[in-house]
């Protein structure tokens, strides 16, 4: 059995070959400092880009112009919004649990940015920490955001917020499982849990090799970051603004950043797992990653601009009845394929096979799983007494 590595070594398992020659690879603290700043800056800039792209893009879908006043073509709208939110009064409800109310936006925001520690953003190995358990780290961190949501819903002492928080917990717990199962298929093919290793293994993007896993992951990710059609947490027509109904000013801004931060993280992870991450010809690696993230995000807000929302029990039904069994079957198929199919150049042949299998399975499930109906028999107090 190999000796257990020290914590420092594990966290800062630097792979210097993707970095320039002058890189201080022997100084882990300097390395960490540079990459922490760079990762968070990347995430924040991408949040602003995503907000702008979504607002303008959805406006196009809706025959509107979108923000076009602040700065050229409205690019400074996010800055204007931020200034407005900073200057707004911070309102805390009288019956709120003040400490939890204050902590909730922080707890919700931080995990979104922590994910970027293990994502190869700038090229081969150019990342904060190439953990050999990177996938586990990502799963653990990304599911932590719901704690902030629940804290917000609970501390606000608002019934709409509480409903939203309960929905959030139920939804995240349900969708975490198909999400992990979908990633397992990729891990089986890649043979590693390191995100950089997964990118390296993609001579064929896993979106082609594992199409079903890609679809399941995308849906589960949409549910995790609660975007349409799974945006139960912020269902405006039902529960006002959900868990952040009672938030204003900078705390609300943090939730807003958290929402888009999770979207950025989700898109980055999808691009890394299924679209080959930073890989691509001509352009610098980070630009390739950004392009891929924007493509993923575009599909996300395309759905948002087009689809209505599912009901809470339908979301649960979809997760447990459709996505989970499909993900499990997908892992089985992937395992069988890896066992019996010689890896190498003939792997291309698996692409049409897997697409066909995925299409067949989705078709079968669409015929058998129905989300219709859903009325519950209730008895009123008077009937119970009688």
């Amino acid at each position: 059995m190999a000796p257990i590595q020290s914590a420092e070594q594990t966290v800062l398992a630097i792979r210097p070959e993707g970095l320039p020659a002058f890189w201080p690879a022997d100084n882990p603290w300097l390395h960490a400092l540079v990459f922490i700043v760079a990762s968070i800056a990347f995430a924040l800039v991408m949040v602003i880009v995503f907000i702008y792209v979504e607002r303008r893009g959805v406006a196009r879908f809706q025959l509107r112009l979108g923000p076009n006043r602040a700065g050229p073509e409205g690019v400074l709208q996010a800055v204007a919004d931020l200034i407005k939110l900073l200057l707004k009064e911070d309102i805390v409800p009288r019956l709120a649990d003040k400490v939890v109310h204050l902590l909730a936006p922080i707890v919700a925001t931080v995990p979104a940015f922590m994910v970027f520690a293990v994502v190869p953003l700038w090229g081969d190995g150019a990342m904060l920490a190439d953990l050999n358990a990177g996938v586990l780290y990502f799963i653990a961190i990304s599911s932590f955001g719901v704690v902030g949501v629940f804290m917000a819903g609970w501390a606000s002492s608002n019934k709409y917020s509480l409903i939203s928080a309960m929905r959030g917990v139920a939804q995240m717990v349900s969708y975490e499982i198909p999400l992990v199962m979908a990633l397992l298929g990729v891990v089986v093919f890649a043979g590693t849990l390191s995100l950089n290793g997964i990118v390296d293994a993609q001579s064929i993007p896993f979106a082609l090799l594992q199409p079903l896993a890609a679809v399941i992951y995308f849906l589960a990710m949409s549910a995790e970051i609660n975007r349409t059609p799974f945006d139960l947490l912020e269902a405006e027509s039902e529960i006002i603004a959900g868990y952040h109904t009672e938030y204003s000013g900078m705390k609300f801004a943090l939730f807003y950043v958290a929402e888009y931060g999770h979207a950025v993280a989700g898109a980055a992870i999808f691009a890394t797992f299924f679209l080959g991450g930073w890989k691509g010809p001509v352009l610098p690696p980070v630009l390739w990653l950004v392009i891929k993230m924007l493509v993923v995000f575009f599909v996300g807000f395309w759905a948002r601009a087009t689809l209505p929302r599912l009901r809470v029990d339908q979301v649960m039904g979809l997760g447990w009845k459709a996505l989970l069994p499909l993900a499990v079957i997908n892992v089985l198929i992937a395992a069988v394929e890896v066992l019996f199919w010689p890896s190498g150049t003939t792997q291309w042949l698996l692409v049409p096979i897997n697409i066909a299998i995925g299409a067949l399975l989705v078709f079968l499930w669409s015929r058998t799983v129905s989300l219709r109906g859903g009325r519950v028999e209730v008895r009123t107090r008077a009937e119970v007494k009688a």
Partner: protein
Amino acid sequence: MEATETRTEPFVINLGPHHPSTHGVFRMRVTFDGEVVVDVEPMFGYLHRGIEKLAEGRTYTQIIPLTDRLDYLASMTNNWGYVMAVEKLAGVPVPERAEYLRVIVGEMMRISSHLLATGFLINELGAFFTPLMYMYREREKILDLFDMLCGQRLTYNYMRVGGVSHDPPPEFWPAVKRFVREMPGYIDEYEGLVTTNEIVLARTKDVGVLSKELAINASASGPFLRATGVDWDLRRDDTYSIYDRFKFDIPVGTNGDVFDRYMCRIQEMRQCCRIIEQALQQIPRGEFRARLPHLVRPPAGEVYGHIEAPRGELGFYLVSDNSIAPYRFHVRPSTMINLTTLRDLTIGWKLADLIVIFGSIDVVLGEIDR
């Protein structure tokens, strides 16, 4: 498997009067068990302006602007129902051209109102404003046409006792012809976006089913009644104005669920286009308003005039004592009466369904609270 006994505590939410999807200042006191609706109690009166009392102190003509403010998304039909009741009471003849103009604007009002009804219904299903914005695009065109007619976009005050207030300007006719020609294509567009969407079907099929018997017993009217399968439309079954001259069908649902209400409205819009097209072909030249004294003074008596407004049967009960103001003025609020069955429709459904079912009834608070 034996079900385990878990005890849950129901809790009460006051949905409204400032909730984003209660279409104004409607309030429901809802008891929930988790997300499941256990009890609903509608509460009215947040927009009560006492229009019935105000009308008793105004002349018959002065009441017309008051009716604009009843169902403010269908002001034209409110005007129409009221002036028709007064005409019935006073025995005033209406010129042909005015009748045609009334049919044209009335049907355009129905399209506009149904556009908003379906648009907001889809919005309440959770679609992020896209279908609504598409429907707003066409509603905007209708409002522009009304702007040409009377200079107003929401409260028209267009109808008069014995006719209408203005003859349309010449540029109105090509515009309305173009609109009627293009509208069916736009309806196809909405249907392509919404009708066959699986999520829409999952959310609306078999949700909030109203039975035929209950619908009739509870005096439901309009698309809400027809969606249950009751073939009853005042335009055909109690023909008023000149509706007997047009060929049109009355769309009827089968299930009485949210989806049928949506489909009824979509199909009705197509029929509206047919009616307007025929009216545009038939409209004669001539007077647009009968010559009447300034003050209408109907003989003593009473009248109940009703028309098929977009949201259902809109009735006006007038009692005259041969003075210049009505002795009693009562509006039959179609949407308030449609809300009678709200509790039956929503019990056992979830919070999200409650909003959708309420949206499918399509209420306007101006008419409910008066």
